[in-house]
């Protein structure tokens, strides 16, 4: 499996998409730091990127990688290698490369501007932004792999990827809003708390926002989260929920991959 992973990385480093992804975050973060020297403000903006762009790119690139390597997978499957190793090597190859692109893209400008920063350096806040970005990569690449394993047809696969993205970033919020308005006479704290955990994007947002003292950004779910747990317990809970959200699609995808006919 480690050998397979070695070749996955070898292949990924030749991939131009990963480079673009890195440059995108590098330029974005650098320009943000250029305009404001307050990390809290930069994090607030980057957070929007983390919860919108990272899932989208992870889904799209994850699906592309999986479809493109179908030939390679077939070749490997006729060798004495088990399916689980192939799937995990592919998954780790994609997620580690994408995460590295994101991590370096947002970290390098931060380190570069660290001396010019006004006020608190917010190490912990910045770290939690990176953690939630990395989780978004792992979660949505797992979804992408699941989708690409399920659908034989590329077009259907991409369609499903876009739908998953739309659902978690836009439609889900709409559903929550609808529920809040429709059932406003009832006590909604606990149901909404559960609903927010059912959306990895919301959880990633809350994970970072819990530490910012900008209550306007918390939103309804975030406010309830903060009220229900204190900051630390809230972060631990949301961390745990993100782990579950990674493991769930990953195991489902692996299960399907093991039964798939090539």
């Amino acid at each position, binding site marked *: 499996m480690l*050998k*397979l992973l070695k*070749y996955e990385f070898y*292949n990924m480093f*030749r991939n131009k998409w990963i480079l673009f992804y890195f440059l995108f975050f590098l330029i974005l973060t650098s320009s943000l730091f250029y305009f404001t020297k307050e990390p809290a403000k930069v994090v607030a903006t980057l957070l929007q990127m983390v919860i919108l762009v990272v899932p989208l790119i992870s889904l799209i690139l994850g699906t592309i990688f999986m479809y493109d*390597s179908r*030939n*390679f997978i*077939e*070749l*490997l*499957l*006729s*060798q*004495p*290698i*088990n*399916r689980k190793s192939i799937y995990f090597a592919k998954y780790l190859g994609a997620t580690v490369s994408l995460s590295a692109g994101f991590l370096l893209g947002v970290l390098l400008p931060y380190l570069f501007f660290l001396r010019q920063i006004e006020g608190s350096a917010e190490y912990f806040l910045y770290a939690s932004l990176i953690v939630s970005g990395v989780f978004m990569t792992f979660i949505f690449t797992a979804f992408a792999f699941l989708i690409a394993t399920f659908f034989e047809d590329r077009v259907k696969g991409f369609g499903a990827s876009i739908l998953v993205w739309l659902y978690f970033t836009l439609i889900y919020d709409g559903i929550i809003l609808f529920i809040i308005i429709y059932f406003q006479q009832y006590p909604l704290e606990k149901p909404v708390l559960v609903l927010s955990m059912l959306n990895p994007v919301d959880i990633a947002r809350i994970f970072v926002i819990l530490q910012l003292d900008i209550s306007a950004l918390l939103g309804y779910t975030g406010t309830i989260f903060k009220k229900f747990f204190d900051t630390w317990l809230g972060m631990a809970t949301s961390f745990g929920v993100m782990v579950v959200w990674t493991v769930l699609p990953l195991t489902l995808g692996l299960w399907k991959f093991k*039964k*798939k*006919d*090539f």
Partner: protein
Amino acid sequence: MVKVKNLYKRFGKVEVLKGINLELTGGKVSAILGPNGSGKTTLIKAVLGLVIPTSGEILVKGENVRKSWSYRKYIGYMPQIAVFPENLTLKELINMLIDIRKEGYNPNIKEEIVNGFKLEKYMDKKLKTLSGGTKQKVSALITFMFDPEIYFLDEPTVGLDPISSSFLKDKIREQVERGRLVVLTSHIMSEVEEIADDIVFLLEGQIYVQGKVEEIIQQAGERNLERAIAKLMEKSYNA
């Protein structure tokens, strides 16, 4: 060496294999024949674990292939259409497979086949730039260089020029004389008659006829295998 018991495979609504029972032993070339869509490739893929059977058992050297993967070290597989990771060069592909598989790798065989197919000049070329025939040669190379005990060759000579094709056939006969098992599919009957010992004739997912090449020709009362098989097929079309 390979034993198939009551094998069924269904793709959605289509039942491709309907109860295959088969035993293949070493030292022979067994040809799996049959019209298009009769389940030849599916049968081979099932043995390789690329296709998961709906029911039935497959044993390779006594080991049940379901949920196992290490048995594939005994097998060399040449697919119908050779597919490779496109961005690698031929040399990189060979080194990678050696690195991943190791077991059985024999540099002498590799050299022999590289020379026989004149593949030396393609070593630093990207695989996506190779022609269909050359890809087929590469596919043969990576199958033979691990010196497996069992060969599954799905239409091995398609796209090869006469020189390469006869070279490959010589190699196949050579393996059988060393006690290896070679299973191949082909639509070129003269070729099958030339290299195969046994024939398994598949029809709509079932074994229709099975036996030695000469026996089948005799039974049909025809001059050669092509006519014998054509007669068999006709019979089945009319049935």
